[in-house]
């Protein structure tokens, strides 16, 4: 049976793509953010995952309002990044893992998650940037991937409790997958930020740091908040912390914190990074 080695959760601001393209990683503005990733890469080199299940939210590259799935799972051989309209160079494509995709799809539907399956799926910066941070080019990314996309564009969004349960179900699916693969969960989004409205630029350090701390040993803590509560506390895009919660939900048993980093601001965003290891 497959093994879940742990999770890496991180922010996914588009401007990071510009900084990578212009090699600004060591400039004072960017250094505290990029330096946080060395420890995550060292951990990956140690645990050597074969596959990453990537929980992220699309920002209008693959999905439009004509059809907006709450939960979508990729089932493609390859996932390509593409022009998102704001001038960030497209990142390399990622290999899929069809066996895990279909096993996940079958398991999730059997557990009453009525997901959308996608045999073609563009991945936006929310998927491609964290992968580039964790496995920087030019060498091809060594892990196969399965994208799981959660709607945070159009309200109503799935509740925090529902996302945690999705994570639990993903964890059970991976653990029942007849494979000797080592699987890492990746969750991307947040932390607090708001792009739209007069409150644009809103950040909530205290909440972010409490959320990160609680995610380790008491992940259900955040499920006490409704989606509008989370928007009020973390901003209209801070609600992307749902991706962190889903990835955490997939980890069986207790976890150890291997590494974390928190830095404000990158563009309009409070950025977080956390590596959790299954014990």
């Amino acid at each position, binding site marked *: 049976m497959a093994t879940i080695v742990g999770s890496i959760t991180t922010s996914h601001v588009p401007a990071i793509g510009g900084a990578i393209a212009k090699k600004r990683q060591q400039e004072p503005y960017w250094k505290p953010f990029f330096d946080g990733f060395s420890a995550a890469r060292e951990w990956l080199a140690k645990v050597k995952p074969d596959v990453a299940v990537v929980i992220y939210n699309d920002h209008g590259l693959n999905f439009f309002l004509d059809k907006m799935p709450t939960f979508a799972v990729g089932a493609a051989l390859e996932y390509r990044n593409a022009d998102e*309209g704001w001038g960030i160079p497209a990142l390399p494509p990622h290999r899929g893992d069809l066996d895990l995709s279909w096993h996940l799809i079958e398991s999730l539907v059997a557990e009453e998650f009525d997901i959308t399956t996608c045999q073609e799926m563009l991945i936006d910066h929310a998927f491609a940037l964290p992968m580039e941070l964790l496995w920087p080019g030019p060498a091809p990314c060594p892990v196969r991937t399965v994208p799981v996309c959660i709607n945070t564009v159009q309200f109503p969004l799935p509740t925090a409790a529902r996302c945690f349960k999705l994570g639990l179900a993903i964890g059970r699916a991976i653990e029942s997958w007849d494979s000797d693969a080592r699987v890492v969960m990746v969750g991307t989004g947040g932390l607090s930020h708001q792009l739209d409205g007069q409150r*644009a630029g809103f950040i909530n350090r205290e909440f972010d740091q409490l959320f990160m701390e609680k995610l380790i040993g008491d992940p259900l803590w955040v499920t006490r908040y409704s989606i509008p509560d989370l928007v009020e506390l973390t901003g209209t895009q801070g609600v992307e912390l749902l991706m962190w919660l889903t990835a955490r939900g997939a980890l069986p048993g207790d976890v150890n914190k291997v590494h974390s980093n928190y830095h404000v601001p990158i563009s309009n965003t409070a950025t977080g990074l956390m590596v959790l290891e299954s014990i």
Partner: protein
Amino acid sequence: MPSSKQKREIPGTTLFDGEQARKGYALNKMCFSFNSAENRAEFVRDEDAYCAKYGLNAEQRAAIANRNVLQLLAAGGNVYYLAKFAGIFGLDMQDIGAQQSGMSKEAFKAKLNETGR
């Protein structure tokens, strides 16, 4: 249970819910088309014709003409699609944030940097 008649009020914030999604569909569809460089060029060549092709209403057309993010949001725009519109003019999220909060970009960035200290 939540009802559309008892919406949660969050200052300076509009949730992109069904009401906004209904109101803004044409505007968002046009902005979604700006994922394509060819479409961005077509908009720049003839803005009126491009807006007419997507069936923008008068409020949406005026908000596009004014390059005004708060007006675009009020007309049903969603920030992710609007960001693609802003991209045509080389504007980033900090330009957009500054405009909405009524600050210069420098003041907006300074406020964010202050939060980080």
